[in-house]
């Protein structure tokens, strides 16, 4: 499995895209991962599910706009250089 740094970047972009397309009302609430369901225990150790939900929510909030630019750049590079 020979990697270049560019293939790592592509893999990361794909994963972040996958997290960013999860829809709040249509999908996440249905499976119990909505933002209103993550206000769980206020102890010092939130559970794994709460941490994951927070991670998904923050990725979706932060990366929405930069992903547009990054995806465009990636598409142009793929079209130009294969």
């Amino acid at each position: 499995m020979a990697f270049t740094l560019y293939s790592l970047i592509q893999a990361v972009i794909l994963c972040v895209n996958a997290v960013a397309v999860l829809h709040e009302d249509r999908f996440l609430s249905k499976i119990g991962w909505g933002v209103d369901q993550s206000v769980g225990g206020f102890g010092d150790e939130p559970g794994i599910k709460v941490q994951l939900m927070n991670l998904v929510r923050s990725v979706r909030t932060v990366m929405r706009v930069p992903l547009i630019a990054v995806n465009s750049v990636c598409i142009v590079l793929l079209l130009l250089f294969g």
Partner: protein
Amino acid sequence: RNFQTKPRARAGPHTGDPLLFADTSSAAPPMNNQGYYTPGYNIGGAPVGGPEDAGVNNLFADPMASAAMMYGSSLANQGKDIVNKEISRYVSVNKLKYFFAVDSKYVMKKLLLLVFPYTHQDWEVRYHRDTPLTPRHDVNAPDLYIPSMAFITYILLAGMALGIQKRFSPEVLGLCASTALVWVVIEVLVMLLCLYILSVHSDLSIFDLFAYSGYKYVGMIFTVLGGLLFGSDGYFVALTWSSCALMFFIVRSLKMKILSSFSHNSMGAGATAKSRLRLYITVASAAFQPIIIYWLTSHLVR
């Protein structure tokens, strides 16, 4: 005292950077350059400048050349400042300097520890008033010098091994280097993700993780050397030895940081599930090392 009769071509002292124009430029003689820095040198250098005086005079009497030199040096200073400012915005340079504060005694002890960690008793990282001690004073502290040097040595060894098998080409070397680097980056990212999800509040920064992941390069070098010197059997013996040593090292080092960080919290009923998960993380991280060592070195030693 002939350095006083020459025209001072440079208008003012460049407090900017003596390193930029110290002794390396053959056109600027010591007398002109270091008039402000080391007068003692002047007195020593003055009598020597007999034949070169005429040529030097011509160069520095030309105002365009001297103006260009001043402009160039001020541009270089500005560029250096900008680069430093930008870099310190993204990467905390002080934190990075901590990881490179090593000396040769530390390097020898750490390399010995990586190859034979079974007799080391105390794995605790020592602190000095809330800041960890630099690697110079504490053999348990992680550093980035050994991983970076080991990475470069691994690339060179890979090139040599491929050359011995007549399979060398410069592209393969670059591919090997970027593959190794990418695997370390993947491992660091996965570790960060797991530490975040399990809400492990340890003081492992991203540089610490790079350091602990980078120690596997030492194992890889040992394995490849064993394979080159003693053939296929030597390769497997070296692989087993370095895998066991590295696994032991990783488990003992990370145990201090990950598993003990939860002892401050309540030891309720839920703590056992958490501590089990943390143990899984530590063991999985250790078990990943032999796999990746084998993966990255087996194609070098047939």
